């Protein structure tokens, strides 16, 4: 009987360690070479606020056409129906327009949060959503530092909606729709590394025109969308308190601990069980048996 118990517990522990093998934490958090990622550089000093990108985005992604007339004083957020919006910000240098959409983080919190890998970062850096996998738990929304993923609360078959960096267009060798349709040249598509060089170049040549930082170079471990600005970024409504740590890193230690606990706790518990049982038996023998 004893040996059978023992075997069963060993089996349980074995099963636990098997499960542990599947639970490796590092995948989404591992930094990868940044050379081949694509991205978009937004030069907010060039943006006219014409909203052509909004309309191009809607057309390319078969979303309802954005409203023609909008109240510019109202700060708009992206919605399930509108993956990008351009807002006007009153800054120390007058009105500045900023396009807003998914930042396509280098190490996306949403993708590491997704338990079905529906939120998925493609090898070239676009963070996309796959309908057939998503269970609608909305943990990506909880995790995203920029609050980008949007959920269709009014649909019985809801989707997570957000900018996909025109992933299908990229496959065909095209640029994202918003970039192709920007009349002001405020958006530039390219390899992320080259865009960073380009941005530094612009700052170097016109040091008075720009603040000497590129938003997205280091924020949350780097994003594929990069911003140049004439005014401090917080005046453009960009969160500047997020730090430079990639968000998946915050859960890494916990996830590392999981296989450890799964393999070490069962033998420890079993040993404790044996010890307490041995003590009980010894006590009973010491008392000479009460039964």
């Amino acid at each position, binding site marked *: 009987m004893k040996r059978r*118990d023992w075997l069963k517990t060993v089996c349980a522990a074995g099963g636990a360690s098997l499960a542990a093998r599947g639970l490796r934490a590092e995948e989404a958090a591992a930094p990868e070479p940044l050379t081949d990622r694509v991205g978009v550089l937004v030069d907010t000093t060039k943006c006219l606020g014409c909203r052509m990108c909004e309309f191009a985005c809607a057309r390319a992604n078969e979303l309802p056409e954005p409203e023609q007339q909008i109240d510019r004083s109202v700060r708009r957020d992206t919605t399930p129906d509108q993956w990008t919006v351009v807002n006007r910000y009153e800054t120390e240098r007058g009105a500045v327009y900023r396009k807003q959409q998914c930042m396509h983080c280098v190490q996306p919190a949403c993708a590491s949060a997704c338990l079905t890998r529906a939120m998925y970062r493609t090898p070239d850096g676009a963070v996309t959503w796959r309908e057939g996998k998503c269970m*609608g738990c909305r943990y990506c929304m909880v995790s995203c530092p920029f609050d980008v993923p949007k*959920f269709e609360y009014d649909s019985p078959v809801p989707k997570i909606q957000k900018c996909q960096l025109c992933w299908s267009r990229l496959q065909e060798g095209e640029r994202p729709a918003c970039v192709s349709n920007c009349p002001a040249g405020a958006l530039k598509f390219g390899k992320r590394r080259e865009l960073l060089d380009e941005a530094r170049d612009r700052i170097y040549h016109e040091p008075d025109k720009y603040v000497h930082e590129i938003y997205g170079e280091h924020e949350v471990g780097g994003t594929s969308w990069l911003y140049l600005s004439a005014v401090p970024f917080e005046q453009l409504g960009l969160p500047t308190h997020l730090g430079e740590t990639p968000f998946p890193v915050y859960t890494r230690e916990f996830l590392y601990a999981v296989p450890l606990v799964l393999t070490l706790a069962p033998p420890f518990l079993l040993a404790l069980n044996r010890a307490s049982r041995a003590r009980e038996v010894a006590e009973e023998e010491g008392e000479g048996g009460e039964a």
Partner: protein
Amino acid sequence: MTMQLVDGARPNLWDEARRFGGFLLRELKPKGKLLTPFNVITGGIILLSAVLLTIRFAKGLGSITNLSQDYPWGLWIGFDVITGVAFAGGAYVIVFMVYILGQEKYHPIVRVTVLNGFLAYVFYAGALLLDLGRPWNVVNPVIGNSFGVSSVLFLVAWHFLLYMLAQFVEFSPAVAEWAGWQRVRKVLGAMTLGAVIFGITLSMLHQSGLGALYLMAKEKVHPLWYSEFIPVLFLVSSIFAGLSLVIFEGSITHKVFHHRVGRRLAATHHDIVRGLARICAATMFVYLFAQILVFVHGQRWQYLGSGWGWWYLLEMVGFVAVPAALFLCGYRNGCLPVIRGAALMTLIGIVLNRLNVSVIGFKWYAEVRYVPTWMEIVVTLGVISAELWVFRWVINRMPVLDFDMSESSHAPEGAERAGVIAA
């Protein structure tokens, strides 16, 4: 193996199936009066919940909830799942004490606690399905076509699932005894220790995992509640949360199901509650100490001046420190009402803590705050009502509050002794 045993026990499996079918039909019939105030109220809530859920599945989550793009998780996750699972923590603590540490004193409450834990997982973690936008895809991370192994939620989901299985195995001897399957019961009883060890391990991980879910919501949870130690705090607090629920549930169960309580449990109940109060007090002081460390480490003094600071102090002092002291006091004096009061306060404190992390302190800066609709509250009450119905059904039929402890897998050497006490 099970099949063989059943076969061996009764030559004709078909006869046995027919016998059990009839038995089950008889057992499914309600016992006692139908139109009691409790039945009418909870029945009404369940019916209303069913109507609301029909609307929810036909028209989407927005039709009956106040969830928004800013608040993707509301009452159903924050209370039903995150708080409910903390309350279910009593099961792993009690089986740890009985089967691992060999504290026979707590053996009489093992079954009721495990049953409570199991049902809590089935119903409250099951309530997760109501909240999922695309519940038909819930099998994806289970059947293996898309393992999001880097997700804390993946881990929590798997551990919920496996732990429910472990708890069912832990409880299954009671089912086998009820159904009259002697040999099956023996096999299941022998599996208890394995299930217990596996279950405790899983519990430690997903109790802390529920806290770890919020690690990535770094900028969204109020700094008085966010820290990198949330998983540890969730784990430690689940110990006294679970035990407080055991005490609270016990005080109700002993009144309502008086006729089902065994002689041994009736005799030792007082002693058990006192022991639990001591453990609660000890773990609560550990928790308080950990909270103070986190408070100092996180340099949280600056937040104390605000309204949030007072809210935080109310939770920590009013619903942790005070009940901890009451538990200690109740344990010293052997005063059950004090202990029950402390348990109730602790439960409120846990609700506050879990909601402060998941709902109240979440996006504390948002202009439009989330407040649940009455419909979300009704569905939550409906889930609780349904659980109570099943709990009552099981308690009234299966040997839960009164059972023979001699055949437990634990300490076969001590079987005779336990048998004498139980007889």
